[in-house]
């Protein structure tokens, strides 16, 4: 049984159906998942400073709750949460001082053994492509999908290690199993501008527009991503275009749910 960690933004944006579709997909593929008994926002950024330990606390609490809830791993949907939780886990395993200080504050020991998994990692490792293909109801014939990974899913490779940081292929492999045609385009690993959406919008708009234009030029009919902030930035940069010129941005669960008939 995996412990499900929604993340503050995915849970707040219920209307987008990211959470609903992801849980329905896992149920169809017979992966048992249950929400953690208690969780809070992971912090949204991994603190790069080496001398402060307070920003690590909420993530360590989530990792510890996975163990006390007796779950085999922590499943997350948002790539930013994946980045933060996995890096904090790595820090707890490698930095003795951070581990001691956090344990002292929380008055609780954490041995660093929780596994942090992302939805597409579960589809590759726990389900497998053969099993996934068996469940395909309606192959996605007409879609030309561009996959956007963003920055936090891939880097730093030593700590995250799920995908190749310069040429990742996991989302493409899953979509090809489901029958879609995937488009290769530049900038799929470039940052969308992230948190500048709330203060210096011109930065995030220009960074995201570069990505969207590259995908459109390569012939994509839709773009998929796994982070709510990336989706917001990629949609917001197109707000001044006419409706038929906009590239639809969807979560990765949308084509998967469509193909599996969920």
């Amino acid at each position, binding site marked *: 049984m995996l412990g499900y960690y929604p993340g503050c933004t995915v849970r707040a944006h219920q209307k987008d159906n990211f959470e609903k579709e992801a849980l329905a997909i896992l149920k169809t593929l017979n992966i048992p998942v249950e929400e953690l008994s208690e969780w809070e926002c992971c*912090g949204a950024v991994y603190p790069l400073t080496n001398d402060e330990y307070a920003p690590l606390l909420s993530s360590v609490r989530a990792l510890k709750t996975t163990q006390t809830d007796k779950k085999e791993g922590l499943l997350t949907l948002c790539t930013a949460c994946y980045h933060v939780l996995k890096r904090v886990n790595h820090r707890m395993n490698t930095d003795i001082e951070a581990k001691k200080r956090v344990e002292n504050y929380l008055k609780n020991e954490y041995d660093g053994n929780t596994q942090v998994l992302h939805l597409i990692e579960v589809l590759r490792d726990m389900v497998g492509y053969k099993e996934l293909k068996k469940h395909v109801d309606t192959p996605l014939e007409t879609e030309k999908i561009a996959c956007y990974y963003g920055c936090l899913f891939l880097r730093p490779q030593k700590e995250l290690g799920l995908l190749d940081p310069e040429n990742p292929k996991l989302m493409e492999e899953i979509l090809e199993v489901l029958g879609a045609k995937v488009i290769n385009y530049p900038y799929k690993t470039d940052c969308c501008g992230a948190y500048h*959406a709330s203060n210096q919008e011109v*930065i995030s708009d220009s960074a995201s527009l570069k990505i969207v234009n590259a995908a459109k030029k390569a012939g994509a009919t839709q773009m998929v991503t796994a982070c709510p902030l990336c989706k917001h930035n990629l949609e917001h940069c197109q707000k001044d275009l006419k409706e038929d010129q906009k590239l639809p941005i969807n979560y990765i669960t949308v084509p998967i749910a469509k193909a599996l008939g969920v």
Partner: protein
Amino acid sequence: MRFPTKTASTGQTEELMDIVQKNVKDCYQCLKCSAGCPLTAHMDYYPHQVMFLAKMDLYHKIIESKSLWVCASCMACSSRCPRDLEPAKIMEGFRTMLLREREQGRVEVTNPKGVPRQALISSMRKLRR
């Protein structure tokens, strides 16, 4: 070539070293960081220039720059540095030094309502405190 005489004090260099724990003097200006940075169009000092100024102890120029507040910590520079110096970490070190001293960065949150909450949380943590 004449260097300006105002360089960082020992206290400042030690503070930066405490926060980042990287030896900036190892940078040999290969420029891979600036080549990979997606937001250089909005910066006044590119990442490799910030590293050079840090190496020369010219902290007052970095502190007055816009680049610290444009960086989105996407780690593209850090993943490419051949000496593992993590320019993103150095930028965060300078931001932290400023925020701890002045308690508020130079960035205002102009759009609190229309964005996903993770944007607000991350920009508050990185740029304001």
